[in-house]
């Protein structure tokens, strides 16, 4: 299910012009990271994918559906969106009910719902917390509940808005594992992140936004190697990329193995 964005513009009621003509195509099954300065329009952009925001002009087409003509409820069968702050999306009395809410509303059979919920809970390591109230969990685990509740909807496209914020190393590893599993299943994963090392290690394509426009778009290594351009949108290259540059390596390196090969 492709995402086609043509000359997308959006202005908030306050007069703030957040998106100033975005053109993008994201193919089915791609793993894309969106990076950029605070206020660059990252969240505003992805909120157009599931119809929470509608274009002021231009269009967003999700697998042939023009989001301007479809409700958020309808688009929810194609696009799952995990909010930046889990507290904005959790409301059930226990984790199991929360995770089941999405698939139940999509009208799947009982067997399919059970299977999807079971898989999502296992993937996010929530099995021992099924009966706990989400608000009795730490913010870390609330984040995992938010992830599970969206994964259980089995949408072709999954969006994560800053999934690693405030997470420790172990949990960042869990989130990376979830993304890898979704990739295996052929899902499109779009992730907003400020964690550039995480971005380098888990995504193949990076889009850098700046002041409501696409600044850079391409293969992770190509985009994250462009230190001066990235600085325009307050992004640093990954740590190993900076190290490689300082050591005078010819190729841009972003991950540990590439770095090792380059210095051996």
């Amino acid at each position: 299910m492709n995402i086609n964005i043509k000359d997308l513009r959006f202005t908030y009621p306050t007069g703030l012009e957040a998106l100033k003509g975005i053109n993008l195509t994201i193919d089915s099954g791609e793993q894309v990271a969106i990076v950029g300065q605070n206020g660059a329009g990252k969240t505003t952009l992805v909120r157009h994918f599931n119809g929470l925001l509608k274009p002021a002009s231009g269009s967003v087409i999700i697998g042939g559906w023009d989001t301007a003509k479809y409700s958020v409820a309808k688009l929810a069968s194609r696009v799952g969106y995990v909010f930046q702050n889990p507290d904005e999306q959790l409301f059930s009395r226990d984790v199991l009910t929360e995770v089941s809410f999405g698939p139940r509303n999509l009208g799947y059979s009982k067997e399919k719902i059970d299977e999807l919920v079971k898989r999502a809970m296992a993937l996010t390591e929530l099995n021992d917390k099924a009966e706990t109230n989400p608000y009795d969990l730490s913010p870390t685990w609330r984040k995992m509940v938010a992830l599970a509740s969206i994964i259980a909807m089995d949408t072709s496209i999954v969006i994560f808005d800053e999934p690693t914020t405030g997470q420790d190393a172990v949990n960042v590893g869990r989130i990376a594992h979830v993304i890898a599993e979704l990739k295996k299943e052929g899902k499109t994963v779009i992730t907003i992140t400020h964690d550039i090392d995480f971005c380098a290690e888990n995504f193949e394509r990076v889009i850098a936004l700046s002041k409501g426009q696409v600044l850079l778009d391409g293969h992770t290594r190509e985009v994250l190697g462009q230190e001066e351009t990235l600085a325009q949108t307050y992004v640093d290259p990954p740590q190993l990329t900076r190290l490689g540059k300082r050591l005078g390596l010819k190729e841009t390196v972003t991950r540990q193995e590439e770095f090792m090969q380059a210095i051996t």
Partner: protein
Amino acid sequence: MAFINLQNVTYKYPLTKGPVLQNINLQVREGEFVSVIGPNGAGKSTLCYALAGFVPHFFKGEFSGEIEVDGKQSSKSTLDEWVLNVGLAFQNPFNQISGAKYTVFEELAFGLENIGVPRDEMKVRVEEAMALTGISDLADRSPYSLSGGQQQRVALTSILVMRPRLLVLDEPTSQMDPIGTREVFGVVRRMAEQGMTVVMVEHKMEWIAEFADRVIALKEGQILMEGRPNEVLTSDLLTENGFGVSRYTSTAREAKKRGLWRKDHLPVTLDEAVEGFKK
């Protein structure tokens, strides 16, 4: 005498099973910049609340031990006396914004209004604080119309404007863009150099090593390790206990196994890594 002095601090929230902080002893001198690291659930935020007086005054629960800041004991002070000296920026900036103000400028003046700062002085202080954190262009925006990272800058600025003697920051850069993060570390460093004492919970090891004086590693409510940033952040003990490390550290550790890192010490910062890897 230490500016902050924690003696045998043990604390349990009303509804948690066991203690969240266990027998914490900690001294921090005036003007020191201390960074607290630890896995989720280590007690980092609770330690922030304890320094800010919310534990136990607001959260209640079972508290023992003593917290002193600038010679005053938390147990013998009220929360409204305590906040004149200590400022806390919450982990989630959304929890901090008052909801009572229409613009960022007014939001930043809110704390000053409450302690009766004269109007003219208030304006000057708000403008200075906004310039310091680079948010002057947000002055007329509604705090709720901002992005996550912008809100976080406003939350930090609303504490700096109060000029507390002790600044407690709970993951103040978690939603900020990378270069903005580095700038905030720089601002906090400058505050410490001007005599403000800083306790900052963070996960970003590279910048902790570059800017902080000392690192406290917490795990399961106890101090696992403390010391100079390079010493703590390269310790095997951290990796064994599920702490994150900078890519410079993890890569050099791997390179050491393959005979490609020849220094005794592992790096945390870019300069240290360049020094060790260059031919």
